[in-house]
């Protein structure tokens, strides 16, 4: 089996470019690849025009917040941005594009991207702003939206446990969007809180098989735990 562990700078420089479409795991703070995101924020000059696909906009000082604040992001596709008033301001001023998607459909579109399904039909969001600009079809007398697959260039997720070949396991509610995002991107970097040997996770309990994973990096204690509280 391939050992996919690499230093974080190698993984980032190999897979992420300006203009990359990046899926970022996490819901609230669970599953968010804080170490990789802090690394990106530390190299703000190297990465511009990113498109981020993430459940929520984080908080201004956390997760993708510093990337948004630094102007590294041209578009965010998300389901909820309410905890990041700075980003809402940027969006309202037209400085950044934001597409809001109902959360379950957000997950389904990503799944479709990963599962080779070009589009799915749904009635979620019919008669709302979420339907704006989307094609609709009639089937069996009902109107449905055609929701297209979402794919990314890179997925960044944080797992609680990952083996050297990339098989990953999440504790508690940390799984959220992480697994499905890892299926839907050309390259996948898993940040592991704990990196274990192949075989340490029972094969039935693997939540993300390593065949989807390109790089495994070690999670570091979060910045605010390493230094001072954030500004």
């Amino acid at each position, binding site marked *: 089996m391939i050992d996919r562990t690499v230093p974080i700078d190698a993984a980032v420089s190999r897979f992420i470019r300006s203009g990359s479409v990046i899926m970022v795991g996490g819901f609230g703070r669970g599953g968010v690849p804080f170490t990789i995101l802090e690394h990106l924020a530390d190299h703000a000059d190297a990465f511009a025009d990113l498109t981020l696909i993430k459940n929520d906009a984080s908080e201004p000082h956390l997760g993708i917040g510093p990337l948004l604040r630094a102007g590294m992001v041209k578009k965010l596709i998300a389901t909820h941005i*309410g*905890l990041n008033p700075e980003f809402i301001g940027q969006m309202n001023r037209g400085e950044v594009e934001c597409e809001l998607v109902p959360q379950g459909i957000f997950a389904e579109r990503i799944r479709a991207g990963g599962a080779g399904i070009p589009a799915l039909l749904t009635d979620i969001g019919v*008669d709302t702003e*979420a339907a704006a600009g989307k094609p609709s079809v009639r089937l069996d007398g009902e109107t449905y939206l055609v929701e297209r697959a979402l794919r990314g260039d890179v997925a960044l997720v944080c797992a609680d446990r990952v083996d050297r070949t990339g098989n990953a396991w999440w504790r508690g509610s940390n799984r959220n*969007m992480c697994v499905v995002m890892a299926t839907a991107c050309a390259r996948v970097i898993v940040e592991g809180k704990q990196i274990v040997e192949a075989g340490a996770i029972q094969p039935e309990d693997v939540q993300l098989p390593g065949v989807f994973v390109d790089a495994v990096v070690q999670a570091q204690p979060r910045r605010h735990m390493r230094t001072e509280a954030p500004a």
Partner: protein
Amino acid sequence: MTQTRAPMQDEERIARRAALELRPGMLVNLGIGLPTLVPQFLPADVDVLFHSENGFVGMGPALEDGTPDHDIIDAGGRACTIIKGGAFFDSLLSFAIVRGGHLDLAVLGAFEVSIKGDLANWKIPGRLTPGMGGGMELAQKANQVLVVTRHLDKKGRPKIVRECSLPLTARHCVDTVITERAVFRRRDGALALISVHPDHTIDSVLEGIEVPMRVIEPLQSWDQPPESPEGVGA
């Protein structure tokens, strides 16, 4: 499921009344904010299962000793627990549960509710755009939707309106509205007043609501639980 502050009097009243709507065997999702206050007012013998859309069923209260477990959070990001017999999963299965018809009740907040049961709770253009999160699926697909909200908005206008002026979350989805003044249920396609809190009168409840509202008399007492719907239970 935790509460980080004591609910104010109105909120406590709403949450206490809302808790009566949670019947044994139900699978229930609680929206962010006021809905999270409801479980503390459930009698201990009511066996309700909570669904948290970020990925589990069996959500329980925060640890009593106050030690937060940040790997188990509710959809509002607050540390909670999982009860014995609960299960974690990913966002896909979480919303498959909702869209697949397994969620008996969603308890949601509201900016506006129309007399026909349309709900607006995700966007105030140019001012507040939290995003819909999972709200559209919950509003559209839960078997029952209960809105818990202050009776009036910050400008003193009733939340129940003729037509929503704000972007919709979903149409014709709200079954029940509970405010600190009254309980409304959708009957024959329109919200009707079914119960008034003892501090209020029909007049003080309907004051400012700009659309005719049916009053189902005799009014139910404030603490009367709803009739058990058929077939509830996961």
